């Protein structure tokens, strides 16, 4: 490996979950520096997502775009990551200015990279600048060196793939052998050619004796990495993972971890059964309640959906006898894998591969294209990981273009082939074109927001109508907001989840507020007030998980039996009490749950300010597409007209409904739009925003965020 720059360092000892250091790498200048953090930094910004938000706020500008040299690519663990005594501690956050949204994106990812980065002496890594040629960064805590090197060449086929390249890179850094002392992040060819490139988090799994991968999937973080000409980062530390945080109160940490593991072990197998099925178990429940995306979210249910239920993947693909997990000590172990799958399509057809997944979101991405073939789900999963593409954005973008064909906005001539719903050959072809930046893939790789503009131009010319008139129609079913594609839930019937997507700061990804089942099925949010309260509370606690380096699933997807006796069972407060103990035991703090929520609110307000600065922070940016709140077109209304008419009757108090189906559909649309606006009003008020969705000055001041930049920004909005 050709070393371009070397810095020697002494790794900081982890104490109470922190190292209080950030590693800075400027790829443009080759400068590598270590930033010591002041004592109050962690008090104010917690870690993980909080650190990434603060760095982006301070060091980027309104004009910064994903490929600007001053854009930062931040990878940050958190104080609670890296303790095998507690479940789900392998997470870290990738934060940057997104190529899809032009504002801050955070994407959480599991694996060993975050914990090893901490053991190597860093709470975060911040990469700036653009390298002159493809480069890699090697952090070797055992030797006490940080190297910037020219990206090694492993041969064309390997160099194009994120998984293949990462495997070779890890071997190259360890005398040709895999080791669980090393982990890597990489981005592949698809991240060069599309705006929804992912970062793969690669680690060695001893049980499977192979490299496994988890993904920072949302918002194009891999695209940023490749725009910086950064091929990969390797981190190495042989320090023991046990008590890796050097917890202040080890006994409190042990008790909290043991209790949570006990709840998981007793409850998961009779609930969602994540330890056996991973997240694919959701498909069946979503389909049963019309929440499973079919044909670009037109429908929420299909008679073909059982072909994609969890038992199919369990019987045909998942390794059944291997305990999984993306980090040590997690007994929820939901990171399922499939071994020895022979690819039947694409340039690697005939190759036998190991596949990490599929997750529910990838299953939904495929059903969203009207495809119900489990083998295609597996192959789409593997190719996207290898190319470095987000399966969610891919499925939503292809689904959007398929619907453009269905409704006559595009023709076969525009695309070059028949891109209709359910056409596996066409979907497969487009996947590879997107990854290689060829043919129609050059357009589709830009995502839905930019795709809408392309279609509008083309369609307006052909049909001799105005571009705006076409755009009005496309906005009804182009499933993106703020530039990010929706994740895989049909929200038409859940006002709370409409808000969950609409108010999510990064765009419509469910990890800020997943309220759809709580609202629609469990009916625990019957009033506008209760929905608004949930839309404040859940994003706060979920943000805290992202700031501390923790996975949310052990909390939110394993219901503690004791929660049934609480006033709000959906919050699963008995389990959250273990997390508060874990925090206090690790860091030595004496925080309550409310303190944690307050810490998170500071981060949410600061992220909101970034959105405001980047042009994505006002009420206008929270307005979801019509399809997200109602059946946008008449065929969707007719598919469940009895249900919708029943909803209207209840809503109007039994008033006489319009005689025609068209009239009832119009009334339904009006009522749904009215409800969403009411929700905006009440949620903004609860969050301390103006009715325009802008944080009030007192809200910003309350969290100590009124620096000069914030004051100027608020002034520019008249606040």
């Amino acid at each position: 490996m050709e070393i371009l720059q070397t810095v020697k360092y002494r790794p900081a000892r982890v104490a109470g979950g922190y190292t209080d250091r950030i590693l800075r790498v400027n790829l443009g200048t080759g400068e590598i520096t270590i930033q010591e953090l002041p004592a109050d930094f962690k008090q104010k910004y917690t870690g993980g997502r909080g650190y990434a938000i603060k760095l982006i706020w301070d060091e980027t500008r309104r004009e910064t775009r994903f490929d600007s040299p001053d854009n930062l690519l931040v990878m940050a663990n958190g104080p609670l990551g890296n303790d095998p005594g507690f479940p789900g501690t392998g997470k870290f956050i990738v934060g940057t200015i997104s190529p899809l949204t032009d504002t801050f994106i955070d994407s959480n990812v599991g694996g060993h990279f975050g914990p090893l980065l901490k053991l190597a002496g860093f709470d975060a890594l911040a990469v700036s600048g653009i390298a002159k040629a493809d480069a890699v960064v090697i952090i070797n805590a055992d030797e006490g060196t940080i190297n910037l090197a020219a990206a090694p060449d492993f041969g064309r086929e390997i160099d194009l793939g994120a998984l293949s390249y990462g495997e070779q890179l890890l071997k190259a850094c360890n005398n040709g052998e895999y080791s669980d002392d090393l982990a890597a992040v990489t981005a592949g060819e698809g991240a060069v050619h599309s705006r929804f490139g992912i970062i793969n988090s690669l680690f060695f799994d001893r049980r499977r004796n192979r490299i496994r991968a988890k993904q920072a999937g949302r918002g194009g973080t891999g695209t940023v990495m490749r725009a910086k000409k950064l091929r990969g980062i390797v981190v190495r530390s042989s320090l023991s993972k046990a008590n890796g945080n050097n917890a202040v109160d080890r006994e409190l940490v042990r008790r909290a971890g043991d209790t949570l593991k006990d709840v998981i072990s007793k409850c998961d197998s009779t609930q969602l059964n994540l330890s056996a099925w991973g997240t694919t178990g959701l498909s069946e429940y979503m389909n049963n309640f019309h929440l499973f995306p079919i044909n670009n979210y037109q429908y929420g249910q299909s008679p073909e959906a059982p072909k994609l239920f969890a038992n199919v993947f369990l019987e045909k693909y998942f390794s059944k006898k291997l305990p999984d997990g993306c980090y040590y000590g997690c007994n929820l172990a939901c990171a399922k894998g499939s071994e020895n799958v022979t690819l039947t399509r694409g340039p690697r057809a005939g190759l036998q591969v190991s596949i990490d997944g599929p997750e529910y979101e990838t299953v939904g991405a495929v059903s969203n294209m009207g495809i119900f073939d489990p083998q295609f789900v597996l192959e789409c999963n593997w190719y996207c990981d290898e190319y470095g593409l987000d399966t969610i954005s891919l499925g939503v973008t292809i689904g959007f273009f398929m619907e453009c064909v269905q409704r006559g906005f595009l023709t076969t001539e525009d695309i070059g082939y028949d891109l209709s719903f359910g056409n596996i050959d066409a979907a497969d072809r487009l996947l590879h074109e997107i990854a290689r930046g060829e043919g129609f893939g050059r357009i589709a790789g830009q995502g839905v927001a930019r795709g809408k503009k392309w279609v509008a131009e083309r369609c307006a010319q052909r049909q001799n109508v105005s571009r705006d008139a076409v755009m009005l129609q496309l906005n009804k079913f182009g499933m993106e907001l703020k530039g990010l594609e929706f994740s895989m839930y049909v929200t038409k019937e859940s006002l709370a989840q409409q808000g969950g997507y609409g108010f999510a700061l990064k765009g419509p990804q469910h990890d800020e507020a997943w309220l759809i089942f709580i609202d629609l099925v469990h009916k625990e949010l019957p009033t506008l007030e209760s929905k608004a309260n949930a839309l404040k509370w859940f994003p706060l606690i979920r943000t805290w998980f992202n700031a501390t380096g923790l996975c949310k699933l052990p909390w939110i997807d394993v219901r503690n039996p004791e929660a049934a006796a609480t006033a709000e069972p959906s919050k699963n407060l008995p389990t959250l009490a273990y997390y508060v103990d874990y925090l206090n035991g690790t860091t030595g703090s004496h925080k309550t749950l409310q303190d944690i929520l307050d810490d998170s609110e500071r981060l949410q307000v600061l992220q909101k300010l970034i959105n405001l600065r980047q042009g994505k922070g006002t009420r206008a940016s929270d307005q979801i597409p019509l399809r997200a709140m109602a059946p946008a077109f008449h065929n969707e209304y007719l598919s469940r007209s009895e249900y919708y008419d029943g909803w209207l009757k209840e809503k109007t108090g039994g008033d006489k409904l319009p005689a025609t189906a068209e009239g009832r559909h119009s009334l339904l649309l009006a009522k749904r739009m009215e409800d969403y606006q009411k929700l905006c009003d009440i949620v903004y008020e609860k969050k301390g925003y103006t009715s325009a969705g802008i944080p009030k000055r007192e809200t910003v001041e309350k969290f100590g965020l009124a620096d000069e930049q914030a004051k100027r920004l608020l002034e520019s909005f008249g606040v």
Partner: protein
Amino acid sequence: MVVTIEFLGNQRVITGLERITMPITGKTVAGDVLKYVRDRHPELKLDEGLAIIAVNREVVPPDRVLKANDVVCFLPHIGGG
């Protein structure tokens, strides 16, 4: 009169059954179905307080009176990823 009890997801795998029927009277309530299934399939561990009862895809309280041909299922809590 009977109702159909559908086994979803994990329940279907554990019992090996798609659905069963249960005879009802005019006074049978949703909670009786839960007890009926718990007695016949203790391996499902359908604890009161944790299992959510849905009738015709609508979540109902345990005292909801059932009608002939209702379809009953039991749901886990799903909080999302």
